[in-house]
């Protein structure tokens, strides 16, 4: 990630000298930073402040005093622990499934002409489907494998198997649905890395007598490994943060962390536990931040091979 647009030209005195004056330097510098003020103010109010409210709230009693009770509740209540475990399980499984299938799809798509219709269709499709979480995706699966879905109707009319009408509401069902938006995300994230593999590397491998296996084992694999790992982490946080899809499928129940937070928000909260939801939210922030930090480290390594 080299800075392409910050060569010395930007600090050229050309523009500044138009304003003239010896002491205009500092004033100009302050003016320069002031130009960023609206943006920073906006982000402060609508992003940083809410995050702080959550973080501070997690350590506050309902009257505003300091307490560790909320975190204590977080770590001792069985349904909270279960929710975290289920969320992590679901995210790990769907991240791996999404990465493997999405990676394969990216590879299969790559062969085509970069500006070809098929590839553009797949990329546009992946762009839409990666955002296609939530309610609409839930309905797609209801319409397909729900009790009245055509796949279930076909299975039940063609075979003696009867499909459990509730399977979609289980963790397995959720995993199948989640994988649906993980695959396209993987395609979007991983395709550029695959694209970065250069012809010369294959030729070099081949000229040394390496076959397909040798190329992927010693050249392609190691080069792509950081990108793949990074994508895996991105997919993990993607599933871990997802709320809408789960909420639309499991309309009652608080089996995942995100659902549990919503339950805390919507239910009449027990006196003294108003801020337990914030502790849950803080737990999510911590997990996502750690994963994203690792992702950033890996990304730095992965970009070493990028042009």
């Amino acid at each position, binding site marked *: 990630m080299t800075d392409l647009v910050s060569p010395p*030209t930007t600090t050229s005195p050309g523009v500044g000298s138009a304003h003239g004056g010896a002491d205009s330097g500092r004033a100009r510098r302050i003016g320069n930073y002031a130009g960023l003020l609206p943006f920073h103010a906006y*982000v402060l109010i609508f992003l940083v402040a809410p995050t702080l409210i959550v973080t501070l709230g997690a350590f506050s009693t309902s009257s505003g005093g300091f307490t560790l009770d909320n975190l204590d509740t977080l770590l001792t209540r069985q349904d909270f622990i279960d929710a975290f475990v289920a969320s992590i399980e679901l995210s790990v499984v769907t991240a791996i499934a999404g990465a493997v*299938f999405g990676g394969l799809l990216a590879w299969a798509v790559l062969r085509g002409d970069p500006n070809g219709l098929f590839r553009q269709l797949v990329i546009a499709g992946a762009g839409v489907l990666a955002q296609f979480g*939530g309610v609409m995706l839930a309905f797609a699966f209801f319409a397909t494998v729900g009790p*009245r879905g055509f796949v279930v109707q076909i299975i039940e009319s063609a075979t003696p198997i009867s499909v459990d009408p509730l399977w979609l509401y289980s963790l397995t069902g959720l995993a199948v649905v989640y994988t649906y938006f993980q695959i396209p995300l993987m395609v979007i994230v991983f395709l550029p890395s*695959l*694209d970065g593999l250069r012809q010369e590397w*294959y030729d070099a491998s081949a000229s040394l007598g390496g*076959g397909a296996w040798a190329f992927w084992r010693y050249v392609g694999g190691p080069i792509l490994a950081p990108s793949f790992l990074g994508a895996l982490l991105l997919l993990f946080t993607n599933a871990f943060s*997802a709320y809408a899809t789960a909420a639309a499928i499991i309309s009652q129940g608080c089996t995942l962390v995100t659902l549990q937070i919503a339950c805390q928000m919507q239910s009449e909260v027990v006196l003294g536990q108003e801020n337990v939801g914030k502790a849950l939210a803080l737990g999510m922030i911590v997990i996502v931040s750690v994963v994203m930090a690792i992702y950033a480290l890996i990304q730095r390594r992965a970009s070493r091979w990028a042009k």
Partner: protein
Amino acid sequence: MTTPQGPIGAAAAEGGALLARPPANSRKLRRPLGQRIARTLVLVIVLGYLIVPLYGMVEFSTRGDYGSRSLASYAAIFSYPDMITGITNSLEIAVLTVVGMLVLLVPTMVWTVVRVPRMRRVVEFLCLLPLAIPAIVLVVGIAPLYQWMGQHLGAVGASPLTLTLIDIILVLPYSYRAIDSSLRSIDTATLSDAARSLGASWPRTILQVIVPNIRGGILSASVLTIALVLGEYTISSLLSFNTLQVVIFLLGKRDPYVSVAVSFSALLFGFVLLFVISRFAPGAASRAGRAVEEPS
């Protein structure tokens, strides 16, 4: 030998043939075959998995009486006043979010590149931060603010259009990447220095010199924003605003056929938008798409 060979192998079959390696000839014939089988298999299985639920939506939403096919569910969309409200709300929020995002982001990013390059990392960090703060967490922290707005700002504060404020935050990462890749592809600093030295004011420099040069990025940022706003459910449902997704969900309990019909239409709309972008702003959509995350 049946190991999938990858794009390099594929390219070698075309470009590498010029090198004419006689012993490789026999292998070259087999290699593409194994590869082609593997590729077909992958495409059939993975694309199949992606397409079947889409077909399911079409099949489900076109069911008529006694096994016939009908478009009645699509015709019925506008007979639900709630649905019209939801669609209108979401479209209005989408437009406002695009405008707000552009007004907030474009001048800031240009300014950063031209005048305070050392702040670039900071702006980037802030723009990508929403990726690390799940929407559900954001809604917990922002709920008090919306409560206050609803109580003290009258009709304006209680309007669903206030969702624009928070949606702008949600779209920051995607918009930032789209616009950033455009800005990197031109020499922004030199362009604005040139414009400024010829006497153009800052607004004029941005609007008439920089903006026309980053059209592609602005276009894909806008499209991604629209797609995200039309699909937003987490925040609007928890703050009890009737947006498109909330209405689709609520209607689903009463008339799932219409809900599926609306979902499919919205999906098709998004697909057409993105496809058009990738056709007319080559590279822009896919580059911006790298940031795509959090599908809720």
